[in-house]
């Protein structure tokens, strides 16, 4: 697949620290210092209580599968079909999108436990998930 490039993130100022941590295989979520809630994607204010006071918290990477789909039609030359994409309900609370790395699609089911792994694309390290 030489010459075919995977789409890569174009971070916003608020998400740069998240992606920098991913490079070191650390999975950080913003956690509010005032109300304690976690959220994703990272933003300047807590979306629950609007507090500007929060810190980066290293998350467990554990979660369950909220929903998933399997791409059969090829939308991008770098994503060879079939492949699975899911929304993962993280143990800390937020729901996030990620690839579900498996070739055994029959075993995928909503609410199955998942754990974080790292998907390397171009110069990027991108969070993905696998069966736990």
């Amino acid at each position, binding site marked *: 697949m030489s010459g075919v490039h*995977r*789409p*890569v*993130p*174009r*971070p*916003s100022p608020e*998400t740069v620290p998240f*992606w920098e941590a991913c490079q070191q295989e650390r999975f950080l979520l913003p956690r509010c210092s005032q109300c304690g809630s976690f959220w994703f*994607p990272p933003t300047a204010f807590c*979306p629950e209580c609007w507090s500007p006071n929060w810190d980066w918290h290293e998350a467990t990477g554990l979660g369950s599968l*909220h*929903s*998933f*789909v*399997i*791409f*059969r*039609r090829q*939308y*991008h030359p770098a*994503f060879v079909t*079939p*492949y699975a*994409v*899911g*929304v993962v309900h993280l143990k800390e609370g937020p*729901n*996030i*999108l*990620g*690839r579900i790395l498996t070739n055994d*699609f029959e075993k995928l*089911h*909503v*609410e199955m436990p998942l754990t974080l792994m790292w998907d390397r*694309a171009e110069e*990027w390290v*991108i969070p*993905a998930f696998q069966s736990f």
Partner: protein
Amino acid sequence: MSNPNRTLSGKYAIVGVGQSDLGQVPGSSSLGLLNEAMHNAVNDAGLSKPDIDGIICRGPDDVYTHHQRMGELLGIDAQFSTTLDNGGASQILSIILAVMAIDAGMCDVVLCGYGRDSWSRTHRDTTARMSVPLVPPEQERSEFNAEMGMFGAVGMHALGASRHMALYGTSKDHLGSIAVAFREHALRNPAAQMKQPLSMEKYHSGRPIVDPFNMYDCSLVTDGAGAVVVCSAERAKDLRQIPVLISGFGTFNNLRGWYYDEHMTDTAARRSGGKAFSMAGIGPKEIDTAQLYDCFTYMVLTQLEDYGFCAKGEGGPFAMSGALGLDGALPSNTSGGQLSEGHVEGMLQILEGIRQLRHSYGPDRQVSDAQWALVSGHGGNTVCHSSLILQRGGA
């Protein structure tokens, strides 16, 4: 939760409808298609250019200040005009906003419409189908999307279908029954893009797109436009057509996103519809025909539940029962919908609701004695929803 002002119920009417050529219209442009539809709507109303003093539209995503371009083409300086940004929910929202603007004394007669050259722009040459995106890349999410392999509205909506299947036992047969029912409607509509019958067997053999959706779960790529004229019910009495009264409307937008909480399976249609029913003073049982935003089969299924036509989780069995057919409990998307007539982001659903209430059709297509229609709009990033309840006006 606030509800729209009931004193507005039935105070305004849709008095003209128009559409452009539909389907594959080589050489068409988005603005040209909408211009044609708007001309047709004004003519249908028996009005003329000097009567129009408001324009509300939603343009193709890549045309800046779309309403200004339309006013230029139509040769109209408007007392009120703007362009909306709620995706497929914009088209009903334009009618809601027209009512609000007229009631506030901002203007008197408003043209609302939408058009797009979606087929032409993706079929200019043999590579355009893959290389020309319907949403310009700079408007896509810049992260947490494509780098994870997520592409297009189809992936987002398939996530909803997948979760609904897991929670409620919804099946591919259930989704298929919606595609099959709407294709049957389309075969009675000479303007529809799809001309071939669709059996359940053929549905199941459809080319896979994003599981659980195959090609028949997905709406069409269409060149086309539609437009309507809105004015007071009082003024409508003197006009050419049987007025169709705007009896109820509502909006709700699940802005926290499709991934948040249970937004995939408990959609914004529920609260949007609740407002519309409250304003109209009726419930789902009074609706004679529904024209539901069918970008994908699943959106019909969940809206049947969210609007209260059946209980949550019962959308599949309800559709399988034959309810959506012309003689069913809830004849729906009777022009074939976006799945089989053509996808103009909900505009054709508004036109079909109006035509059914005007009793425009012969017995082969007419919902018998239709008095009330529900029309829905859904879109943006899968989270915006608008609802419209229409009533046949006095002869």
